[in-house]
């Protein structure tokens, strides 16, 4: 099947259809349609998934396991230290309130943030992480809140 250039986007509803393709065809389909969120099961069936595959407010992720079977996990279970989760959640709430001021001062930079201020910052995330990793005064923290400051608040909203 071929589609002429400059044609209008084609909208397909495949929720009631059984489509089977090869893994090579799937790779090409994903490359040609980066906005579509698709999965390929172990037996080659193409299935659509919601763009985020994440349930809001609970961080439940729906994906496939290594056998190609549907697999669900909670992001909270990926924190081996519960104190780290609590720390990051608290810092995120403070960070969101401070973001307008942070954009003014650190736009386009990576920062390590804690309790309303930037502990350290850098244009290069790897350099910043390396300094923080070796900072004795920061060693007792259960987590490190390191993030990129957008160039504007509008950029933040667009990516929310």
């Amino acid at each position, binding site marked *: 099947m071929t589609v002429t250039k400059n044609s209008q986007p084609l909208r397909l509803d495949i929720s009631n259809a059984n489509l089977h393709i090869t*893994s090579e065809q*799937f*790779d090409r*389909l*994903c*490359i040609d349609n980066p906005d579509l*969120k*698709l*999965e*390929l099961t172990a037996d080659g069936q193409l299935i659509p998934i919601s*763009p*985020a*595959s*994440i349930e809001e407010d609970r*961080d439940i*992720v729906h*994906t*496939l*396991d*290594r056998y190609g079977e549907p*697999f669900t*996990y909670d*992001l909270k*279970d*990926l*924190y*081996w*230290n519960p104190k*780290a*989760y609590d720390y*990051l*959640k608290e810092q*995120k709430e403070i960070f969101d309130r401070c973001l307008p001021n942070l954009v003014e001062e650190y736009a386009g930079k990576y920062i390590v943030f804690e309790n309303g201020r930037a502990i350290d910052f850098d244009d290069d*995330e*790897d350099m910043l*992480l*390396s300094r*923080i*990793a*070796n900072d004795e005064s920061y*060693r007792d*923290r*259960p*987590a*490190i*809140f*390191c*993030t990129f400051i957008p160039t504007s608040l509008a950029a933040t909203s667009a990516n929310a």
Partner: protein
Amino acid sequence: MYFRNPSDNLLVDSNDSGIIDTGLDITVVSYTIVSKLQLRPLQMKKDFVFRGLGRVSVGIPYLIKTSFDNENFIDAKVIAIPDDILNGEVLVGRNILNRYVINFDGPKLIFTIAS
């Protein structure tokens, strides 16, 4: 590959199932590694894409020390995902690969990694 906790050199691990994936912008490891090394997470979560499968996945970023020769370690960010998704492998992405010069001898099937 060899791994260490950046804050505690006694917490170490190694993995002989590393896969070099130039299509990934970030390195992906299983949850078992981060819990064994007691690593510190960096953010709440991060989206990334398994390029080869076109799949969007989500994991938790952690700070780690890593090395190919168990001597020269670098600090790096890795994304932890459940063990059920990876088959014990480490997917080495460009955030680590870009710090090395990597040559592939196709006929001999040998990768040479130099800093």
